[in-house]
């Protein structure tokens, strides 16, 4: 006799509130439903009540963890509407700031993974070491989170040689942390035992549900907006798109762990090749029209659509966040999984419900899907 198990909405193990309804038979999850809306704030409506500049702070507060990439994606889309060319130096600086963000976001994910696997020691070590990135971001931008460093036309703060020196020093200190995480993920590592073979998302199913970012790359598909549709200075920087073939939680973890090395490589290259010049140009009038912009957030592809009517207030802003695309992957991975692994699977896509909460998804037992938009 199948029974229903509820996870959430308010459970301290999950950083954010969400509610999962799992249909369980014995120890196996046979169906999963997801109920959202606990974080809904009406952001897309709020976008159309503020000026383009003021919206930067709003875009940032869609998600507190990947806040920088939201402002970058928003700013790049607005820049296209305004016909602005961003100075070369600003493009490199954007890469540096965004890769620092990817570092702290990935480390946070490992912290939360350790927490969900009850590896308390690893949790404290990863979160403690992660503070180095947070301190660095605070030193460079003036805030630990929601740093509002990207602006329309460039960036707000420059990296002078002494700051560059400090970045290099801290990157060197961070390498041991990435090595430590890799050691947890090697064949005998503490994470491997609990994540190998858990929550498998096969390659074809990953494509079917439209997964993005590390979730997709963990299933063997090399997809990265930084390579496919380069923005900022990524076309001039050399880095590798990390792919793992297994599709389980360990593969997703390995993708993220190896990406931290790539991020460090990108930052070092950008610092070496930082061109001289201005860091920002003045915004101008937006033209009447619409634009779409996309960037590779730490969690995957982030898409902004902006329609302008020529005034200083956008007419429509639509945000497609990576966690929204990945939510369907969670449900896919939960089906057939053992109940005790449910939390690990949910955490494995690095869900960011602050990002996602604009839609309620009801997944009926028959497999039919109904999407109710809260807009």
């Amino acid at each position: 006799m199948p029974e229903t198990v509820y996870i959430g909405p308010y459970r301290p193990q999950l950083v954010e509130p969400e509610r999962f309804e799992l249909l369980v038979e014995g120890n196996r999850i046979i169906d999963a439903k997801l109920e959202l809306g606990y974080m809904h704030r009406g952001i897309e409506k709020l976008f159309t009540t503020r000026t383009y500049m003021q919206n930067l702070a709003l875009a940032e507060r869609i998600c507190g963890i990947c806040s920088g990439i939201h402002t970058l994606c928003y700013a790049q889309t607005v820049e296209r509407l305004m016909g602005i060319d961003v100075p070369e130096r600003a493009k490199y600086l954007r890469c540096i700031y965004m890769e620092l963000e990817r570092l702290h976001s990935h480390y946070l994910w490992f912290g939360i993974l350790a927490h969900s696997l009850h590896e308390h020691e690893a949790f404290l070590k990863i979160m403690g070491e992660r503070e180095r990135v947070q301190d660095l971001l605070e030193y460079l931008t003036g805030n630990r989170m929601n740093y509002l460093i990207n602006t329309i036309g460039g960036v707000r703060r420059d990296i002078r040689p002494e700051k560059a020196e400090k970045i290099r020093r801290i990157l060197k200190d961070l390498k041991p942390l990435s090595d430590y995480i890799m050691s947890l993920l090697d064949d005998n590592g503490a994470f491997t035992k609990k994540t190998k073979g858990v929550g498998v998302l096969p390659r074809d199913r990953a494509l079917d549900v439209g997964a993005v970012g590390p979730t997709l790359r963990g299933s063997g598909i090399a997809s990265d907006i930084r390579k496919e549709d380069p923005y900022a200075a990524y076309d001039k920087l050399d880095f590798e798109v990390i792919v793992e073939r297994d599709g389980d939680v360990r593969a997703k973890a390995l993708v993220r762990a190896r990406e931290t090395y790539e991020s460090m490589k990108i930052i070092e290259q950008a610092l070496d090749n930082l061109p001289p010049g201005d860091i920002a140009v003045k915004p101008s009038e937006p033209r009447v029209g619409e634009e779409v912009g996309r960037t590779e957030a730490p969690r995957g592809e982030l898409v902004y659509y902006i329609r302008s009517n020529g005034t200083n207030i956008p007419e429509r802003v639509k945000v497609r966040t990576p966690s929204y695309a990945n939510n369907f992957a969670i449900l896919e991975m939960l089906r057939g999984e053992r109940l005790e692994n449910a939390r690990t699977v949910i955490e494995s896509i690095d869900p960011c419900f602050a990002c996602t909460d604009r839609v309620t998804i009801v997944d009926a037992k028959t497999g039919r899907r109904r999407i109710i938009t809260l807009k």
Partner: protein
Amino acid sequence: MGKISVYRFLSAGCNGCDVEILECLVPRYKLADLDVEVVERPEEANVLILTGGVNIKGKEELLKIYEAINPPRIVIAVGNCALTKEIFDKGYPMVGPPDQLIPVNYYVPGCPPRPQAIVKAVADILGVKIEETEDYWLAPEGFRGKHEFDSEKCMGCGACAQICTADAIDVIDGPDKRIIRVNYGHCSFCAFCQDECPTQALRLTREYHLLTSDRQTARVANEVNLVGCSVCGGVFFPQKQIDWALKRIVEEKVPAYKDFSSDILSAMMICTKCRREIGSIKRAKKLLANLSERARKL
């Protein structure tokens, strides 16, 4: 009070504060040393930490959870969303801020507050002192914390209120004074006001310990004298802004207008209503003709 058991509740925020609270658990931030534990069920807790501005869906849950918390049932609102809903103030699903739904004892402003600020707030509430070095508390150069006005420089133009991303700055005109007030409980600490200020009068300092038990006190204000219209005498504009504009015209922009500075000043001292009177328009036209003739000569 004995052992502190904290239950954390988030509804409708960006989750930045929640990550910072999680970060407080690492040894560097001594939250564990204060005999504080984070519990998983509200029935086990006696302190409730709120983040986020509470939306329709979170309201019922919040009321239920508040009922379940054990006495002394201390409620701490962390982050500006929990104080005032901040940037999401006008969002349609928002029903908060939480203190309109349940009693809130303490507020920790910030967006998000530094972990040091959260730990210090908890320690202050408990009446414990944290032994730490100066370095531990110090925010780096360029940190965006509490606002500070330079009352000498501030001319009351209100540019900060115009650019403000979270409607945190009020411009209140009284009979002879204008008050520029920053409600840092509303503030998103984006520092656009600092960037936009034409006289660099508003500055974000490195101060970030902002714990308060009344969110109405989370304010910084500056007063500027208003001047009367030279025709009707009605109060209309800050004296300092008129001086600043005149100085900018005759000293920086067009030095050749210096001879006319008294005429320009008298034209500026007329309020918008009186400017529409025939006599004023004629005078203004004459002044403009003189100025354009001077410009042609150059």
